[in-house]
């Protein structure tokens, strides 16, 4: 369903993670949901038994459960609070999550709520998560008020690691200003990402770039690019 005419360097490897559980964590409003939904859709072309787990229990709107229909059509199982709980902002965690974590045949993308507050929910599962079976990717957008420099970004990353009791294994540069994103902004974001990566010894696993900009960005950015289709639309769009 994602029209990808161009072959992007590193994308195949990116979509064949060595680990079967991929957690997207990061700052509040850094774009984890959009990234998680896109990553799951891309990954679904190369794998089976994939689930998308909406573990966002801090955000009241714009959550991945709103894309359940679209994601289900791609053969991905959506795990999120159902019924009346779906539109609540309650710490409701569906029990099926444990099955996904423990069944070694299954793969899953986890969309975790923002900041350390949102990542707290992972701590409840950390004893079930085998060290060698997960990636925890930290999504950040250098245009967000508290992620514009290296120092606060690193501080947030450490806070998320501490509360989730898991380790960040990669960075996702999702720097964007929505429709005002341009190449120089993407490059600035990648530069911040490399600096953050250097500070903590974690690789930049991908840049996320809107489909419309992918062609131009491919020549300018060094890390692999995940093309993004934007699903989280506002009612007038």
């Amino acid at each position, binding site marked *: 369903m994602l029209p990808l005419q161009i072959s992007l360097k590193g994308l195949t490897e990116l979509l064949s993670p060595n680990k079967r559980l991929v957690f997207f964590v990061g700052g509040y409003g850094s774009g984890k949901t959009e990234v998680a939904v896109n990553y799951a859709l891309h990954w679904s072309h190369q794998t089976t038994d994939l689930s998308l787990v909406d573990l966002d229990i801090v955000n009241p*709107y714009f959550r991945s459960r709103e894309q359940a229909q679209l994601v289900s059509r791609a053969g991905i199982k959506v795990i999120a609070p159902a019924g009346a709980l779906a539109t609540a902002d309650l710490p409701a965690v569906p029990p099926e999550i444990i099955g996904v974590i423990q069944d070694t045949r299954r793969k899953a993308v986890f969309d975790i709520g923002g900041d350390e507050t949102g990542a707290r929910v992972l701590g409840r599962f950390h004893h079930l998560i085998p060290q060698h079976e997960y990636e925890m990717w930290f999504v950040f957008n250098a245009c967000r008020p508290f992620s514009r420099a290296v120092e606060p970004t690193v501080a947030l990353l450490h806070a998320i690691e501490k509360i989730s009791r898991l380790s960040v294994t990669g960075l996702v540069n999702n720097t964007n200003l929505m429709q005002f994103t341009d190449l120089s902004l993407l490059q600035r974001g990648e530069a911040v990402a490399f600096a953050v990566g250097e500070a903590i010894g974690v690789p930049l696993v991908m840049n996320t770039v809107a489909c419309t900009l992918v062609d131009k960005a491919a020549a300018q950015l060094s890390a692999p690019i995940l093309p993004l289709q934007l699903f989280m639309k*506002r009612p007038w769009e």
Partner: protein
Amino acid sequence: MGEKILMKGNEAIGEAAIRAGCRHFFGYPITPQNELPEYMARRLPEVGGVMVQAESEIAAINMVYGAAGAGARVMTSSSSPGISLKQEGLSYIAAAELPCVIVNMVRGGPGLGGIQPAQSDYWQATKGGGHGDYRMLVLAPASLQEMVDLVRDAFALADKYRNPVMILGDGMLGQMMEPVMFKDEEVRELPAKEWATTGTRNHPGRNVINSLYLQPDRLEAHNEHLQRKYAQMAANEVRYESVNVEDADLVVAAFGSTARIVRSAMEAARQEGLRVGLIRPITLWPFPEEAFQQAAKTAKAFLSVEMSAGQMVEDVRLAVNGQKPVYFYGRTGGMIPTPEAVLEKFKKILGGEA
């Protein structure tokens, strides 16, 4: 700072308030506006300000009364049920003529309702949700950039009239993200407030902040003074945006995020050759009556689109004053009108089926 940053509506209000010189915030959590107190809790200590999470909304609004009375630039925020709790305090603040800014990120009601967006607090905001004859200036932004600009204006207007100013948003505006720019210089010096409890440097005696007048003639005189002030506000502060009204057969009234939905529908209608225009009140009080009176001379019909069961439509009817039919389309409970359904309503009205 001329750089664009990507913010949630609630965060953008917080930053705009700080840049407008607000150093005091008192609040109590409620969805969907929590990012605002969270932002203030994080940022205010960095700039020498104070954020207090009060024990309730009632306590918070009374802390606003105290801070405003002491001359501070102060803000509180909440969402519908919490704003209901603040009504007594708002009436006291209006009576004591205290400048402050109150943010309401409206959610579906009545009662506890839900946490999805709504505009059903229009009456409460514009008609005086508390007791007595009082008015608040009510500003309704439709984008995050406008929200940032209006927050700054809100503090200036509050000081100018010594009156509470409300920013009436909805959960959608609070939760969504858009790039914003803080164009204006940061406010570092607040205007002198000689009426405040702290404003006695240049005159002897004390300043008393009070809303109690036991002698009826004194209270009536105070009311007359307030009414003169409200008349000034009504004469000077009306703001609205008008699009495609000149040649429109159908003029639509919508505010806040609903106006953006109507705009999408209007553009689609124009593509099909339907002459639809939009009047978007930016001040809900004072209401832009004159814009509607003017439009009533040329338009064939009016429509109010709201996320409510029909509240602003009454002000549109008062302004149009029976000259042309006024229709209504709304969704409630946190449901959001779609541009398609709004376009359908245009067609029905213009086709004579409504």
